[in-house]
């Protein structure tokens, strides 16, 4: 992993089009600004963990009887 030290309002470029700026440092919280082209997805890492957990739940909870109940409920 590349490690860079930055001060407030300093930025990092990734390629020509992605800029990451340190906007605010307040105790443990750091506010980061990201400007990137629209086709680049930016999300918090936690979202991955959340999706992973939800997928695992989905795989363990897919009772056939429930699906049938649901079907009769919807029709």
């Amino acid at each position, binding site marked *: 992993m590349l490690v860079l030290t930055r001060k407030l309002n300093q930025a990092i470029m990734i390629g020509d089009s992605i800029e990451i700026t340190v906007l605010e440092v307040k105790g443990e919280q750091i506010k980061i600004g990201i400007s990137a082209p629209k086709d680049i997805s930016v999300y918090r890492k936690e979202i991955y963990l959340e999706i992973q957990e*939800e997928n695992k739940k*989905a795989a363990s909870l*897919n*009772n056939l009887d429930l699906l049938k109940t649901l079907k009769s409920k919807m029709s």
Partner: protein
Amino acid sequence: MLIQSKHLGLIEIDEEKIITFQEGIIGFSDIHRYILLGEEEENPFQWLQAVDEPNLTFVVVPSKMICPTYQPKLNQDVLEKLEIGNLERILYYSIVVLPEDISQMRANLQSPLVINLENNKAKQVVLNQPEYKVRHYILQEMGEAKNVSAD
């Protein structure tokens, strides 16, 4: 080919219909081949069964069934990975969590399974559109939709 499925037992599937998730599904990165089962006209819910793992199956639903205006924005990376040439030939499915308490049943619209029908390549994509969340409570949203149309 014959495969063992969780809910339907031993079944014959058409190998051409096998869907390949090169990177797996998030949390199941080493399982790549799946097949959609249980298509019925009146019931939008289907199973996505792992071809090589009898016990692994997901309930899935076309994302548009949950959100008729569903319009994911796919980035270039996804278009390239799935070799998407024609957006009309893309299907979006949402994985459903189906707990005992049916009111808690939910579908994931933030990270749909994107399937390219041209080559059956697929990927679970994470969207960056705040209107689509990991948990959309299906019965509640359908109820709200009904209320709106009744007004």
